[in-house]
Structure formats: structure tokens, C-alpha cells
């Protein structure tokens, strides 16, 4: 019996994507469709005194009185709700915030019309960063500027720190980034007389459908969200945006289809941004390098409003919870603050919370190694949770269901030939060349279930996924799922799962785009949940179809269901292979020729799956860099990964996800900065200034070894795909620090920063491990 799961089969969706037949939201055409453009605030903080509109279709907040704002809920202490009206009402809080909307026959004309809208602003003092937001007398963006705070203590960290032989402290600053998918956000909306259709390239179709219904005061069954082909999401497209609400409202108001497609300037300045945290980390350790305690203060610059559904708490809380990582640390205290500023809201971006948590922790571990003059590999080895300790509860309360932390470290060192690299590094240094080796070991939460979202307080995210598997009368199979794809290859990977369950060729399994009228309810595609939560639902539904098919076959073959066995394309009676039926015959029987009342019609099943709280993947990354001490350029010479993401559905796709994540991580480490000046004005408004990596920024080769330790989840899968983005910034930062022998405490590592570090590193013998930077 051939199995398709685990094989590197080329993707089904590629045939249309390669030939220009993908249908992205900008490609949709409906008769009479109008184009939409937004008038956006040029000020980070201002009162709106008046809006004077020329003749034409121009709408403002006053027109959307009955439309409810974006106000995600959170259960638990420390949360200050915010409400973002879809068009700014009275005050604007970030450059790019939508203030008015215009409609015209073409986007060209819409932009012309938008320019004629005269908004009279009274600028208010901006709050451009966290320090400004927290200073006494700061302008208040809401009733307070702290949108979320949380503290946690496990064990007696203060006691441990008082007694510790070694304390290492560092402050890590991650820069503000943005996901920058090649395709921006977009919406087409149309009310056909009874249903509001909304085509949107969202990662969370069920949630958006419900949120739009609530916002617009419609029953959910009257709102239909359809997800077209999507050009990348990376978390940015999982949120509900003001534009989605406004465009949907316009469809209701105007009675014609309306289309809005975000341009690059809007994407870089008005879509949710990411990261920008200041993490103070302290490690208490023994002189043998054993970690005893961890303390952290995490302050996130979360922009002007909470994002829906995950809120501003998502990113900084994620950092706090993942910070102990794969290390056995018994005592931990953290404090988290999410602080509002006059910037666009901070949302999800590949590696949410984990990227910065791993960056902070891995930098601290390397500093500890430097302080104790131990090899960074050895320090890690001494502290990684060993394989025998699972399930392991971390000091932040996360329960690691399984892991191969030590094995991953050993494997990546073997893959990279670590000993040889260190020798090469020494030789190079003698010749005046600076090579650096950087490690990042991490554990990653994936496939989160409802328990986790409830425990966090994130009430807007359900946690389950759903799948419907329906066999058509001709035996082909149609699969509807609750989660959309943005390039991950679900049309293939999910088909592979069903193909194996029903012993059908992949070509006869079709995974449909998400349409809330046909797809079951679920949470969406984010936080690496598709191969756990999504696959769980698909396997459950396919499993039920398989049982029913077996029962139908049994009726046709006049045998007991348990005596029916499967083989590719046919079912037969055990021990009597001549007594067989094809799968097509079973399907036909289900819908056309029913064997005399013994089997009821239909061959489909719907299943929901709420995964366990979390399923953990882990990996160890190793980066080798060359630093030009005179120009500050950093080149990535080699990159090695030992990854355990459980059982792999499609190795080609897994490899691609890893490379893509690594590219984003390299971008974050060296290039990307959604910078704002002291007046709250964005500085990176085009691709000339927001620098995402090209092929040259990638190493020529990334060597990977997979440790496929199956999870306990259906199929043995774990989530993956964020790994590269989680670990690469830390691996590269550590490598640069290793090369220049000076601490790296902020991103991006620009040539200028490298030159500064090279200057400091050349001042030999100065221990900077206690530097607050």
C-alpha cells in the first residue's frame, strides 16, 4: 500500500499559480464593481476638526454611526480594552489611520478624489515611543497608555539571584518589523440582495465572518466570507482591519460590488506591524554554567490599538511565556507591559513572541558562556531539558509534550562540523578575517487548542478547526476546511492526508478554498496550527468517511464491515480478494444505487478538532557569518538546522517553509526596520527603505537534518513553518557577536552597528556581560 504522506510530491495548486491562473483578491471582477481608496491621517496624533468632501462618494465616521468598532475582548486581569472605529472618530492615533473613504469607477479616480478631501487636523503632541508613553504627564492615548500588564513568579527567583555565584544581565531591543507579504491586503464586497459576500485574503475566515456580522449588525448566516488565493500572510492577514469593515459597509450602503486593494505604501504603514520590544533578561547560574533562575521585564511598543482577535498582549506575553525555552530553569519571574504609542497596531508575525524570546534568551546564554569561558554549545548542553523528562512543565507554565532538545543540538553540531568550524575560525582570525558562529536552540508552541487561548484570556480565538470530507458520486473527494492558505500548500498536504486515509490518488482529492457558507467553523491559519489542529480535523473527518465507506462496501459484498480490507482503489473481503468493489462503486452506491435499505445515503463527514493545549516542536540552528570589520557588512556563509517537527507530510514543502522563515529571520536580523522618527512619522514607507532580503542575503546553502519524532497528535504531526523566523535572528545575532567579540543587543544589525561593535570588541579584556547596553 503506497503512502503519499511523507513524500515530496509536487503541489496541486501550482498548476494554476504557475500559469497565471491564480485568482487573488485584486483579480476578482464583478459587474459594476467600484474601486475604493482611503483618506489616511498624515499625523500620528491629532484631533479631527472637520472633513470637507467634494462632490462624489465620500464617507466618514459620521456615516458609519451604527457600525461597531474593533474591540477585542480579553478575560483576565491587566487588560485595558480599546475600541478602534473603522473610520477615525474625532481623533487619529497613527499615521495611516483611515479617516475617510471614497468610491470611484477606477482606483486612479478614487485616488484623485481622495486627494480632494480636505481634513482639518489639530495636531496633538505625539507619543512616539514607549519612553514617551510611560513618562509622567504623557498624553494619554486611551484611559491609560498601558494596554496590558502581567506578572508571574514561579519558585523563588529573587532568592536564587541573591545567592547566585554568577549573574548575567542584558537588555535586548528588537526593531519594529512588518510582515510585508508580496500581496497586500484586499477586500471585495457585494450584497446580492440577501447575502453580504466578502472576498478577503484573510487567515481567519470564520472569525472575520463573525466579526463583520457583529460590526455591521447582520446575522451571521447573512454574511459569507470567501478566501481567494492569497499571496502570503505571515500573521498580518489574521486580523480584522478597519478597511474590511468599511468596504463591507460600502457594499451594503451602495448596493454595488466594491473592491479595495492595499498598495505597498499602505501595507508598510497601515497594516499591523510586529515585534518592537525591549527585553531585560537576567540569568542566575552556577560557575558550572547551570541555570538556576531567570528574570525578565518585557516591554512592547504595541501601537495605538489592540488588534482583533489576539490583542496587543499577544506578542509581549508570548515572549514571556517562551523565554525559558528548552532549558531546565526552575525559578522564573517576569513582568510584561504592552504600551500604546502613536504607531499602527502591533499584530501577529511569524514567530510571534518566540522570535524575540529566543533572541533574548540565546543572547543571554552566549553572554553566560563568554563570562564563564565555556563553549556556548557546552553551556546549552548542560541546561537543555533531557529527553527523559517529558511531559515537562516550564517555569512559565507551558507543558512541553515532547522534545528532542539535546539531540537537536548534537545533530546540528555534527551537521555543521562544529569542531572544524571553530578551528577554521581561529585560523581565519590569525589572517585578520572575522568569522562568527552562532547558535539558537528553541522550542516552539504550535497547534494551540482552546485551553491555551482560554488560559491566556484570549477569548476571541476559539482554538478548534473543522473539516468536511465529502465523497462525490463519482468517487472524487471534496474537502472543506476552516482554515485558509497563503502559500503553505494545504491543497496538497491535506489531500495527501485524505489520500492515504481513503487509499485514493491525490489527484482525486480536491481541497476547496474556504467559503464560510460551505466550510466548517474554526480559528484559522496562524501559529503553525494547520498540521496539528487542521490535520486533526481532516483526519477525523476522513476517518469517519472511511468507516462509512467500509460499511457500504460490506453491505455490497455481503460481509461484515470488520472483514473488509482496503487496497489502493478497492475494498475486498479479507481472505477472498476476488470479492471486491472499487471505491468508485462504493461512492456510487452511497448516492445512486442503494443496496436495499441496509445503508443510508451519503458519504461525507464533518469533524471538529480541538487539539491539546499545545504541541511543541523544537530545533537547533547554527549560523556562520563573516564580518567585514571595515565596512560592517555581514555575510552569511553557512546555515545549519536540526529540526524536529514530528512526522512530515511533504518534505518539499517543509523545506520551503524553513528556507522562507530563515530568509525572514535574516531580514529581521540585518535589514528590516519599520522605523518611526521622534515625531511619529514612518520612515520606511516603500521597499526602498523597508529592506526585505533578496537572494543574495541568503546563504548559498542551508543544510538540514530532520529528527522526525512523532507527536501524540493525530498523524504524529507537529506544527512547523515558523522555525526559521523564530531562530534565525538569534543565530545570526550570536554569530555576529561571536565574530566581533562584543555583545549584540539590538536589531537590525546594520553596518553602522557592526562598526560600533568592532570598535568595542577590539578593546580587549573588558567584560561586557553585565552591560545594560
Amino acid at each position, binding site marked *: 500500500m503506497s503512502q503519499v504522506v511523507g513524500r515530496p510530491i509536487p503541489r496541486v495548486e501550482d498548476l494554476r499559480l*504557475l500559469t497565471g491562473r491564480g485568482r487573488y483578491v485584486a*483579480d476578482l471582477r464583478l459587474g459594476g464593481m467600484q474601486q475604493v481608496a482611503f483618506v489616511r491621517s498624515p499625523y500620528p496624533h491629532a484631533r479631527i476638526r472637520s472633513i470637507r468632501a467634494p462632490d462624489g462618494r465620500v464617507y466618514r465616521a459620521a456615516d458609519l454611526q451604527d457600525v461597531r468598532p474593533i474591540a477585542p475582548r480579553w478575560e483576565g486581569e491587566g487588560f485595558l480594552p480599546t475600541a478602534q472605529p473603522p473610520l477615525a472618530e474625532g481623533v487619529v492615533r497613527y499615521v495611516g489611520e483611515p479617516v475617510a473613504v471614497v468610491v470611484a469607477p477606477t482606483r486612479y479616480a478614487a485616488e484623485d478624489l481622495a486627494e480632494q478631501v480636505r481634513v482639518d487636523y489639530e495636531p496633538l503632541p505625539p507619543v512616539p515611543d514607549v519612553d514617551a508613553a510611560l513618562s509622567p504627564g504623557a498624553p494619554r492615548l486611551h484611559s491609560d497608555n498601558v494596554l496590558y500588564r502581567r506578572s508571574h513568579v514561579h519558585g523563588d527567583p529573587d532568592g536564587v539571584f541573591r545567592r547566585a555565584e554568577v549573574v548575567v544581565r542584558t537588555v535586548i531591543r528588537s526593531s519594529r518589523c512588518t510582515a510585508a507579504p508580496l500581496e497586500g491586503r484586499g477586500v471585495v464586497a457585494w450584497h446580492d440582495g440577501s447575502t453580504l459576500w466578502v472576498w478577503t485574503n484573510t487567515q481567519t475566515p470564520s472569525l472575520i465572518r463573525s466579526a463583520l456580522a457583529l460590526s455591521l449588525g447582520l446575522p451571521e448566516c447573512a454574511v459569507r466570507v470567501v478566501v481567494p488565493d492569497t499571496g502570503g500572510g505571515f500573521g498580518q492577514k489574521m486580523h480584522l482591519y478597519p478597511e474590511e469593515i468599511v468596504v463591507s459597509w460600502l457594499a451594503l450602503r451602495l448596493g454595488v460590488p466594491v473592491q479595495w486593494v492595499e498598495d505597498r505604501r499602505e501595507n508598510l504603514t497601515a497594516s499591523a506591524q510586529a515585534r518592537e520590544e525591549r527585553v531585560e533578561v537576567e540569568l542566575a547560574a552556577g560557575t558550572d554554567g547551570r541555570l538556576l533562575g531567570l528574570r525578565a521585564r518585557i516591554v512592547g511598543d504595541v501601537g495605538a490599538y489592540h488588534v482583533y482577535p489576539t490583542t496587543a498582549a499577544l506578542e509581549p506575553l508570548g515572549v514571556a511565556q517562551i523565554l525559558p525555552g528548552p532549558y531546565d530553569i526552575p525559578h522564573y519571574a517576569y513582568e510584561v507591559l504592552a504600551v500604546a504609542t502613536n504607531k499602527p497596531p502591533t499584530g501577529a508575525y511569524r514567530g510571534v513572541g518566540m522570535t524575540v524570546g529566543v533572541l533574548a534568551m540565546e543572547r543571554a546564554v552566549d553572554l553566560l558562556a563568554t563570562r564563564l569561558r565555556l563553549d556556548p554549545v557546552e553551556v546549552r548542553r548542560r541546561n537543555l531539558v533531557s529527553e527523559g523528562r517529558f511531559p515537562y512543565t516550564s517555569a512559565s507554565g507551558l507543558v512541553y509534550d515532547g522534545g528532542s532538545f539535546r539531540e537537536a543540538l548534537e545533530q546540528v553540531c555534527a551537521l555543521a562540523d562544529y569542531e572544524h568550524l571553530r578551528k577554521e575560525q581561529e585560523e581565519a582570525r590569525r589572517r585578520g578575517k572575522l568569522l562568527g558562529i552562532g547558535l539558537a536552540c528553541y522550542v516552539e508552541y504550535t497547534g494551540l487548542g482552546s485551553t491555551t487561548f482560554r488560559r491566556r484570556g484570549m477569548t476571541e480565538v476559539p482554538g478548534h478547526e473543522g473539516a468536511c470530507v465529502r465523497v462525490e458520486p463519482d468517487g472524487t473527494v471534496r474537502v472543506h476546511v476552516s482554515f485558509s492558505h497563503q502559500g503553505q500548500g494545504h491543497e496538497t498536504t491535506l489531500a495527501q492526508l485524505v489520500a492515504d486515509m481513503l487509499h485514493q490518488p491525490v489527484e482525486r482529492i480536491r481541497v476547496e478554498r474556504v467559503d464560510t457558507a460551505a466550510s466548517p467553523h474554526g480559528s484559522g491559519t496562524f501559529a503553525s496550527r494547520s498540521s496539528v489542529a487542521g490535520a486533526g480535523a481532516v483526519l477525523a473527518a476522513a476517518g469517519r468517511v472511511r468507516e462509512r465507506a467500509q460499511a457500504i462496501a460490506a453491505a455490497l459484498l455481503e460481509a461484515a464491515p470488520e472483514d473488509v480490507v482496503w487496497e489502493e482503489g478497492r475494498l475486498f473481503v479479507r481472505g477472498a480478494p476476488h470479492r471486491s468493489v472499487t471505491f468508485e462503486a462504493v461512492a456510487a452506491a452511497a448516492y445512486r444505487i442503494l443496496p436495499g435499505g441496509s445503508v443510508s445515503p451519503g458519504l461525507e463527514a464533518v469533524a471538529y478538532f480541538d487539539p491539546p493545549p499545545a504541541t511543541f516542536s523544537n530545533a537547533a540552528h547554527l549560523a556562520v557569518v563573516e564580518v567585514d570589520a571595515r565596512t560592517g557588512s555581514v555575510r552569511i556563509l553557512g546555515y545549519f538546522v536540526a529540526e524536529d517537527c514530528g512526522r512530515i507530510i511533504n518534505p*518539499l514543502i517543509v523545506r520551503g517553509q524553513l528556507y522562507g522563515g530563515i530568509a525572514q529571520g535574516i531580514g529581521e536580523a540585518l535589514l528590516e526596520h519599520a522605523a518611526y522618527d521622534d515625531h511619529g512619522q514612518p520612515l520606511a514607507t516603500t521597499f526602498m527603505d523597508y529592506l526585505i532580503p533578496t537572494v543574495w542575503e541568503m546563504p548559498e546553502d542551508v543544510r538540514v537534518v530532520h529528527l522526525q519524532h512523532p507527536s501524540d497528535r493525530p498523524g504524529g504531526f507537529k506544527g512547523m513553518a515558523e522555525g526559521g523566523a523564530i531562530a534565525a535572528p538569534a543565530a545570526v545575532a550570536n554569530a555576529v557577536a561571536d565574530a566581533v567579540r562584543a555583545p549584540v543587543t539590538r536589531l537590525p544589525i546594520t553596518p553602522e552597528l557592526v562598526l560600533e561593535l568592532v570598535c568595542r570588541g577590539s578593546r580587549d579584556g573588558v567584560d561586557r556581560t553585565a552591560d545594560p547596553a
Partner: protein
Amino acid sequence: MTTRLRTIRLTVNGSTHEITVETRKTLADALREDLGLTGTHLGCEHGVCGACTVLLDGRPVRSCLLFAAQAEGHEVTTVEALGTPDRLHPIQQAFWEHHGLQCGFCTPGILMSTVWFLQHHPHPTRDEIREMLAGHLCRCTGYLQIVEAIEAAARSVGRKGP
């Protein structure tokens, strides 16, 4: 001939079409909207990302930086000319086999650059491939499998001819 609105004849993928467009309308928008050829995508509209790349008289150019009126009298080639799901062009076939795309948004532009590239570099080195590919931004793939796909395409185009 007016200065703001023109009727132009565009030759795209071997066929000539007469369309009436504003003179400020970019070639990318004219292809997508007036000719319904939505395979050419807009990723930035300032010439950096390369998603809108088409061939103009056989050479790769950013169609977001050309006005439709400028393309009159020239040959435009878009991704739709390469192949169909039933008959992939060898370059498309190579991308398919080597997972040279994920979301597919940047892909048509890269395919068009590759068509030109392999005509002029039938036996490319990795560095030559990367030099050409550096004119394209991809956020999904991390590029490595794209390079592999282009190497494979070079071998296969070399065998079969462009």
C-alpha cells in the same frame, strides 16, 4: 491622439488588441484590467519587487513603470503565453518539480525574467542565476528552491530548446 485618453493597439502574447485607456494607466493595469491577463501582479508599484515583470520585445521590464501607451508598437509577453496547466512550459515544469513557489504571487514575474535569462545564459552558473534573481523579491520561499528550479530549467531547456 489626445494627451489624456488614447485608443491604442497592444500586441500581447502574439495577439493585437485595441483598447482605450487613460495615458497615465500603467501597462500592468492595462494588461490586468483591459485584457483580463491577471497573471501579472502588483507587489509594490515602484519597481523594486519585480512581481509585475513582463517581456517587452523579449526583455524583462517592470510593467508597473511603463504606461500602456508606451507599449504600442512593441511586443509584450506575459506569463499566460508560457503554458497551461495541461502543458507546462519547461521552466514552469521545473518550478513545479522543485517547489519553486509557495504563494505564487511573485512567480509570474520570475518566470518571465527566467525566460529571457535562459535564452541568453543556457548554461548558467549559480551566481549568474542569483544576479538575475536579485531583481525579484520573494517573501515566502527564501529563494533557494527557486535557484534549484532555475538550474533544473536550464538543464531541461537546454535539452529541448527554448
